[in-house]
């Protein structure tokens, strides 16, 4: 498989999927290594960086996704009137921040860091599929352990959770 052909296929796969696609899966279908996939992505991204392209490829967690560039947002808005995406409350963001860096973590531990009841915030995050029950702790009461989902990385556009600390 030559690299140019692989680039086109990767572009097509991401286009069809809409949702982020796992790098392993792409590598498997193309019969190349993950590193080769990333090399293709890097080259595609070089093209996308040109001003005459409105798309961009990004890595979220262990997946790749094709999205529009932020700068064309006003035009997208003008033609499609996208639904206003509901944003997370302060409570939900705080709770998510804790789960992200302390996972797996119980509700009790979250509440002792925040100092307030966090049941509602956790429920909201679960409904939005940003956190999930990883398992249960083997102590009396068998409390639920929470962790973040793959979709959470997509939601915030994070390649890894360290991005959040580095960007600060």
């Amino acid at each position, binding site marked *: 498989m030559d690299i140019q052909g692989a680039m086109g296929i990767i572009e097509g796969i991401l*286009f069809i999927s*809409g949702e982020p696609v796992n790098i392993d899966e792409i590598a498997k279908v193309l019969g190349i290594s993950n590193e080769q996939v990333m090399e293709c992505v890097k080259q595609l991204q070089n093209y996308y960086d040109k001003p005459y392209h409105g798309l961009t490829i990004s890595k979220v967690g262990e997946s790749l996704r094709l999205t*529009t560039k932020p700068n064309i947002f006003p035009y997208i808005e003008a033609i499609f009137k996208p639904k206003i995406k509901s944003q997370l409350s302060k409570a939900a963001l705080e709770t998510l*921040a804790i789960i992200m*860096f302390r996972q797996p973590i119980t509700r009790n531990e979250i509440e002792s860091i*925040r100092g*307030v009841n966090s049941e509602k915030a956790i429920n909201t995050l679960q409904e939005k599929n940003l956190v999930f029950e990883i398992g249960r702790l083997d102590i009396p009461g068998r409390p639920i352990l929470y962790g973040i989902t793959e979709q959470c990385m997509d*939601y915030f556009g994070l390649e890894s959770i360290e991005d*959040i600390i580095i960007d600060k």
Partner: protein
Amino acid sequence: MTLNIKIDAFEGPFDLLFHLIEKNQIDIYDIPISDLTEQYLSVIEEISENELDLASEFLVMAATLLSIKSKLLLPSNQNQEAQSELAAMEDDDPRDDLVNKLLEYKKFKEISLALKAKEEEQKLIFKKPPEDLSYVWAADFSISKISLEDLKSSFISVMNKKKPEEKISKITKDSMPLSRKVIEVYKILKRLKSQVRFSKLFSYDASKVEIIMTFLAILELIKMNKILATQEKQFGEIVLTCREA
């Protein structure tokens, strides 16, 4: 000092403390507990005038602050002979626990702000709806690999699947009005005629709200002189008996 603060603006007692610390440019490693406690109390006082339902967490923090304040006052009453002991005291600053918790909270507060910024960024970019390819392979569904047992187990699993509606019905159960709960509890006690332990009035997996409601119902019944409640020791089991027997 006039404080124009709404409790909604704060995520909890730590958040409120932070607001006060930043506003007064306090060094977090050397918190003037007296001042801070005073300010904290005046804020929650003002708030609780309007919002009686002030979250208990805010009151717990008030108690913590007062307790730290009183501990800090103690060493000054002791004699100054034991220099080494004093050094040990410094190691064991009563504020440490609070400071550590505040620092921990601060870290996540900052991360949550960074997440907020990322969320804003992501608002501007769009994914494309996935292409519906199912038509390409619709012809592939074949019944030949399915048995009646498969169908039965599929049916049972789909019927048992948790549905979002269940959450709604759970809420109505939780928010049973107190008056109904009072009647319900009284009926149980009257029927059993003997002593009943408080913990037997709700199932082991009862929600916090349910337990609180049951407790409130008990208080109500005591006030109405309908039942007797005894508790042998602090945090011990509450035993209930019906007065009319």
